[in-house]
């Protein structure tokens, strides 16, 4: 069935209207002459619709005359008629071709080049180097060979370990920089405290530890010394005087953790008016043309009494410092309700502790590990606001390498 339809499309298909006394005669004569008819339907008691291939139309006229029927073409369908119509309207075809060409050209242009992953190397530098190999805005994407650009970038920038280039209308250059190992401690060095604190643990790989666990150290104090003196026990009593002078100098290595304490303060009123979202929100989409505002979707103005709104604007094309005076604006408004909260002492203390914790999250360094937290409520139960002090004990790396000149 589907094959027949495909054939009918390629060969074309004529729908004829047959009128006459004896259409049966017409049908019989047609198929005895080898003309293929299909989909014979009566449209009204005296009009019969027949479908035939256009190649058999000439013979069919003959048949019609002999069977005393009149035939008329009702509809022409299929590829041959389409081709004929297109041949007469050649510019339509040309336009379609031009459209395809423009689409192809514009989509093979490089519109933007994004560089990501750079840390020390400036992304502009990477962009310039890529542009030297053809990967720049305004070029065609076939002017930039992906492998070539990648190889060129890796050769020109020895600080890169990996480059991935994607060439397209939105080209991307993904870069991974080499992470060089920390400068090896060449020459003698100490490990000193970077800030004031109490030593938690100390583990010396090389060098002489000068402090014990629990010691209070000042900033800059030597923790592990690079000056290693032979200890008294292993030194021979005879040579002790000499070995005293023969101190060796090493690059001190080790891990030193310090204990630190931080304090954070949080307070909460017992009675408070709080803005709470009701969960209802609307969005307004509009286009600003010059000073005119055209709302595409959403209400004319925000239908809430109290609300929080956020606005996004997308500027259209920008060229030099000229912009089209058209922008697309999305406004989202969320309704807000004023709620009076009346907290019990426990709730308030909980809340205040939570606020102190929030401050803590911002206040201490990311690598610091909190070991212990203590909450303390200041004042008595009837105080308003309820105030809480949070004391956090953390464990942090305290040592830094500092070189010295052996004297």
């Amino acid at each position, binding site marked *: 069935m589907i094959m027949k339809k495909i054939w009918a499309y390629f060969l074309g298909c004529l729908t004829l209207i047959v009128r006459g006394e004896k259409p*049966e005669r017409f049908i019989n004569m047609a198929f005895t002459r*080898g003309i293929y008819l299909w*989909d*014979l339907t*009566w449209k009204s008691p005296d009009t019969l619709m027949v479908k035939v291939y256009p190649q058999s139309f000439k013979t069919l006229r003959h048949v019609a005359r002999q069977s005393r029927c009149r035939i008329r073409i009702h509809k022409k369908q299929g590829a041959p008629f389409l081709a004929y119509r297109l041949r007469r309207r050649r510019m339509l075809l040309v336009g379609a071709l031009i459209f395809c060409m423009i689409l192809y050209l514009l989509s093979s242009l490089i519109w933007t080049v994004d560089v990501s992953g750079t840390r020390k190397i400036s992304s502009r530098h990477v962009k310039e180097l890529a542009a030297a190999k053809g990967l720049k805005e305004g070029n065609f994407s076939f002017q930039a060979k992906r492998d070539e650009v990648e190889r060129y970038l890796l050769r020109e920038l020895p600080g890169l370990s990996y480059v991935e280039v994607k060439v397209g209308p939105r080209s991307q250059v993904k870069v991974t920089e080499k992470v060089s190992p920390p400068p090896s401690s060449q020459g003698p060095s100490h490990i000193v405290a970077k800030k004031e604190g109490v030593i938690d643990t100390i583990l010396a790989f090389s060098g002489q530890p000068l402090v014990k666990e629990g010691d209070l150290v000042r900033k800059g104090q030597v923790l592990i010394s690079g000056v290693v003196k032979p200890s008294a026990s292993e030194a021979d009593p005879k040579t002790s005087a000499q070995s005293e002078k023969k101190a060796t100098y090493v690059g001190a290595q080790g891990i030193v953790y310090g204990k630190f304490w931080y304090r954070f303060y949080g307070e909460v009123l017992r009675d408070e008016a709080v803005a709470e979202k009701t969960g209802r929100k609307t969005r307004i989409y509009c286009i600003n043309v010059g000073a005119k505002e055209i709302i595409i979707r959403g209400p004319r103005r925000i239908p809430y009494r109290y609300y929080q709104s956020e606005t996004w604007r997308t500027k259209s094309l920008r060229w030099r410092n000229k912009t089209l005076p058209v922008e697309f604006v999305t406004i989202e408004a969320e309704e807000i309700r004023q709620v009076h909260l009346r907290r019990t002492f426990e709730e308030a203390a909980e809340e205040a502790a939570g606020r102190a914790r929030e401050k803590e999250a911002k206040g201490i360094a990311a690598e610091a590990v909190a070991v212990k937290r203590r909450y303390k409520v200041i004042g008595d139960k009837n105080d308003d606001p309820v105030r809480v002090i949070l004391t956090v004990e953390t464990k942090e790396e305290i040592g830094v390498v500092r070189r010295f000149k052996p004297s």
Partner: protein
Amino acid sequence: MPGERKKRMEYLANYLELPKDLLMNMPRITLLGDMQLYVENHRGIMEYTKERIRISTSLGELLIAGEGLVLRNIFPDEIAVEGKIKSLNILE
């Protein structure tokens, strides 16, 4: 087909187990539910309206009555009828 020859052919067909429609030039009529009818070995259309189709065959006349009958295909050896078929008569 004369009676004598017809009997002989039928006997031959039975004996050799051959399809009878080939040997005896009989119409093969296939009815699919009440919506599709195929007639092979026909001899032409005698009448065609929406409610009635008469097809000439070697047996005689095949009368199809129904509603909204459509001749889907007409080949020299096969006719396909579609529509709601209500009755099928063979008139000698």
